[in-house]
């Protein structure tokens, strides 16, 4: 059975499988890792816009604070990116 499958695939070796796993893991890592920060940044920007709409004069303070908050939220996506890169090119 296994030998038949190997023959059909044209002789996939263990190294190839590891390669496939790397790509798959990197893609999944980035996809799932960007999900949370995407929601978080969306939330942050929505509330900042709410605040700006309510009090347009507080725009500068809100804007820079929002940027800082977005940067912190983004951190998990950055870690996901790091791990993806490590998976793809280093491991």
């Amino acid at each position, binding site marked *: 059975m296994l030998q038949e499958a190997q023959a059909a695939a044209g002789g996939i070796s263990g190294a190839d499988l590891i390669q496939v796993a790397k790509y798959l893991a990197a893609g999944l890592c980035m996809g799932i890792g960007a999900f949370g920060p995407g929601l978080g940044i969306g939330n942050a920007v929505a509330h900042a816009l709410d605040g700006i709409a309510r009090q347009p004069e507080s725009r500068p303070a809100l804007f820079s604070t929002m940027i800082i908050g977005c940067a912190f939220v983004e951190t998990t996506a950055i870690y996901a990116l790091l791990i993806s*890169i*490590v998976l793809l*090119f*280093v491991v």
Partner: protein
Amino acid sequence: MEWGRIIDFNWTLLITLLQFAVLLVLLRFILWKPTLQYLDKRRELIAARMTAAKTSEEKASELVGKREAELAAAKKESAQILEEARQRGEKSVADAKARAREEADRILADARTQVEHEREHVLADLKAQYAEMVVLGTERVLSREVRIEDHRKLLDQLLAEIDEVALHGVKDDS
């Protein structure tokens, strides 16, 4: 030359940091130091101008206030003068009125006393004539001479009655 990995830490890190430090020093002397000094100086200048403008404005407003105060004082003074003049006029009018009334009163009183005198005079005359007429009447009636001395008592009583009538007659008549 060889291809490194994507995340490949090497001496580039330190060298670029050094470059950045050089840039920091360069910019501090080229841009930040003179620019910040310049901006400070200009801010001071603007502040000085603002204070100068403010002081001149204050002076102007002070002048205006003074002028207004003077104006108000003058107005008050003129009003006072007017008031005084009015009061003086009123007083003189009142004086004149009082004097006129006094005069009139005096004239009236004079006239009244004169009238009184006349009346007394007339009354006295009348009294005298009464006595004579009474005597005359009595002589006619009695057909003899009546001497006043003889009937002095009776006559006096009569005169007293006439006096009474003359004094209260007006009241009794009306």
